[in-house]
């Protein structure tokens, strides 16, 4: 414990020396920081376990559901064209709610309002599958969330969360992911924290998981109380992280250790 505290103090010292945002040109996806085998796993669609969810999502996309007995495909057509780039633009501003919504929330809103079907639970296999299938259509495209006067207050709120120290360890996101990326924490490389490939297959989870699951894990790691799935704070933070990763290539379904 003492060693860990000392390490944190050192980290804090290093932070004061190199504090600040990562320059645009020095940003790197977690993909670049992982091992050769894990990269090969992500690159090969027949070895990438995330593709199991993508294929299931394709089935769900074409399946009639809810009281309206409509399939996603009946309104949206072929996802390969209609959903291209959609995930790279989320969280996106939703005029009806007056705030940004994640791709998961957008899918659930469509289910409840258009398909008259019950909302899918966060991290359920079906919601992950549909999200993965929609997000897969943005693979290779640059991340491009809207930053206009409507989303700016939420982006700034997300930025404030990113730079705010919290939890019993009293750490802010930027202390690891801006100031100490590339160094090791308990044997693992600290990534820059760019959400380029969600939902992604994490080997530690042995499953696909959303960005919110990852963020909640990080919050538990700094011994802060995690925000609930779908909470405004999480969505704002996701919006800020996507803006921070603007222009980076979308990788869904990514594989991470």
């Amino acid at each position, binding site marked *: 414990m003492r060693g860990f505290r000392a390490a944190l103090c050192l980290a804090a010292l290093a932070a004061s020396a190199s504090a600040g945002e990562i320059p645009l040109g020095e940003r790197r996806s977690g993909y670049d920081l992982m091992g050769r085998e894990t990269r090969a*796993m992500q690159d090969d669609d*027949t*070895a990438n376990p995330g593709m199991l969810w993508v294929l299931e999502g394709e089935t769900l996309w074409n399946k009639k559901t809810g009281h309206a007995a409509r399939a996603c495909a009946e309104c949206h057509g072929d996802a390969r064209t209609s959903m291209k780039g959609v995930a790279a633009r989320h969280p996106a501003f939703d005029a009806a709610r007056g705030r940004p919504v994640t791709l998961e929330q957008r899918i659930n809103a469509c289910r409840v309002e258009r398909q008259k079907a019950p909302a899918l639970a966060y991290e359920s296999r079906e919601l992950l599958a549909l999200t993965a299938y929609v997000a897969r259509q943005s693979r290779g495209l640059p991340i491009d969330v809207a930053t206009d006067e409507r989303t700016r207050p939420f982006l700034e709120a997300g930025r404030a969360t990113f730079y705010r120290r919290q939890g019993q360890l009293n750490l802010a996101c930027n202390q690891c992911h801006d100031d100490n990326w590339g160094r090791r924490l308990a044997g693992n490389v600290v990534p820059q924290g760019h959400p380029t490939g969600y939902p992604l297959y994490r080997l530690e989870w042995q499953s696909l998981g959303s960005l919110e699951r990852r963020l909640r894990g990080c919050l538990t790691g700094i011994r802060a109380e995690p925000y609930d799935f779908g909470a405004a704070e999480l969505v704002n933070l996701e919006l800020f992280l996507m803006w921070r990763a603007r222009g980076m290539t979308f990788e869904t379904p990514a594989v991470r250790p």
Partner: protein
Amino acid sequence: MANALINVPPRAKRGEIIEIKTLISHPMETGYRRTQTGTAVPRDIIRTFVATYNGAEIFRAELHPAIAANPFIAFSTVATESGTLTFQWTGDRGFSETASAAITVE
């Protein structure tokens, strides 16, 4: 539900060594874990994987609790004749899944 992903080259030359890759959706519950109330989570794993080439067995694997969820199995074989490769996974709780792929050998 898409349970299995198979990658077999659709065409090959006679005598060529081909790589076959399979990925299947399965939780691979070890049987060693307990719930928060202390009850054991029963084991639920794939026990065997068998690949046949026009009916003849060419590859077999036994799987154990230490193998991760969604097992990925890759192996190679010699392309001898056109036909069908069939893959079968069987496991606990009556789990059984079959997939097949065609190959043309020239």
